[in-house]
């Protein structure tokens, strides 16, 4: 579904991605782990072109999306949902308006259709009673669940999560992870940058370990966590497990 070939990204003289090659298959859940600053966020943001790569190619459903002259960047992003560490809900809109905005303006859905789906999604993330609440009245965990619903409202083919629980108080992490597990169970394709090793173990089909802009090692969670091959993976896991 997403194929990445020799992806490179620099910020000025800082080389953040140094040639990443990988493929995410349909229905797969891929977790990305690695030390802070290793380029995980940048990798994810390149996938939906929030960052424009400096080299290499990304194919989405067989189409090269890094060929910016040939593709409609907005149409591609509409097919990829993204959930951010800091939620980024629109504070001037209530929950339903947050969820409906993109379907209305990008997909040109009718209001009835958009709202019906919004309420369905809210039920799914367990927040139907918060439909008319404003983001600043919600807890972090609730905001993040709304953000997930907002991304899902576009019916994306793949969801990208960038440390969705790292800004949350510990007692709220579970409610967000539970929603994500549910999505994984339904067969949604997901790429998840996370420090939640328990989640990765339980849900991931494959785990990528990144360091210094490269994928150092990748494997099934069992293999990667129980018998890491690479020194740097071992060092990283020993620090966080």
């Amino acid at each position: 579904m997403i194929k990445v070939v020799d992806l490179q990204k620099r910020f000025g003289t800082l080389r953040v991605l140094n040639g990443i090659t990988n493929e995410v298959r349909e229905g797969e859940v891929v977790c990305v782990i690695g030390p802070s600053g290793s380029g995980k966020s940048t990798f994810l943001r390149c996938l939906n072109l929030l960052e424009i790569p400096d080299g290499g190619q990304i194919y989405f459903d067989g189409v090269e999306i890094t060929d910016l002259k040939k593709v409609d960047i907005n149409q591609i992003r509409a097919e990829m949902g993204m959930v951010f560490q800091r939620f980024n809900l629109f504070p001037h809109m209530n929950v339903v308006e947050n969820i409906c905005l993109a379907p209305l303006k990008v997909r040109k859905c009718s209001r009835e259709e958009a709202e019906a789906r919004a309420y369905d999604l809210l039920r799914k993330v367990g927040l139907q009673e918060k439909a008319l609440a404003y983001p600043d009245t919600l807890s972090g965990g609730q905001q993040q669940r709304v953000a997930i619903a907002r991304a899902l409202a576009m019916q994306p083919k793949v969801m990208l999560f960038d440390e969705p629980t790292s800004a949350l108080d510990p007692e709220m992490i579970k409610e967000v992870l539970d929603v994500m597990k549910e999505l994984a169970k339904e067969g949604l394709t997901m790429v998840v940058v996370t420090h939640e090793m328990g989640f990765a173990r339980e849900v991931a089909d494959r785990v990528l370990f990144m360091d210094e802009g490269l994928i150092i090692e990748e494997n099934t969670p069992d293999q990667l966590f129980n018998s890491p091959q690479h020194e740097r993976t071992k060092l990283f896991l020993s620090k966080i497990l």
Partner: protein
Amino acid sequence: MGYKWDLSVVVRFLPVLLQGAALTIQLTCIAVGMGILIGTFVGIGRVSKNKLLYTLSSIYVTFIRGTPMLVQLYLVYFGLPAYFGTIPPRMAAIITLSVNSGAYVAEIVRAGIQSIDRGQLEAARSLGMTYSQAMRYVLIPQTFKRIIPPLGNEFIALLKDSSIVSVIALEELVRKGSMIAGRTFRAFEIWTAVALLFLCMTLPITQLVNYAERWLKQND
């Protein structure tokens, strides 16, 4: 030392001064209204990635903010007729004040947009919205609230600066004061009255701005 205050002059000419104040308010309201219209577009241009839009809006803002309003007024009133024929003073005043205000409002709008967290634009774009959709539905509505206090200050500044149009014979508050003072030789009384009238106009707005700032602090 022996100067005796004669307040009857003020009382007698108060209606005339109030007429002037009315024109001052009228000119300022029109100019700030137009300024908001101009400033919104120019302010958006100032954060645009489009080189042409950015350059044009930057030149405009730099020129207006870097030159005296008096010179701008002369340019419009005495300069533009070279191309457009005579311009009535009132028209020249409105054009000058609006164009001037537009530049300052543009900077307010630019700062407002740039004060919004980057994540908002990214979230909007990640949902497939175009840059203009993200601006229109996500960023601009959030800047409204934030720019209310600086817009209030701009209104106060323009209210005071609008007195400059007295030099092209528009009978706003300062011009009226000047006329009456010249006729009655009661400069001290009249100019005190003019100053107080300005205060009567600016103080309520200052209060509103303060109130808005407090309200925003609570709600942000």
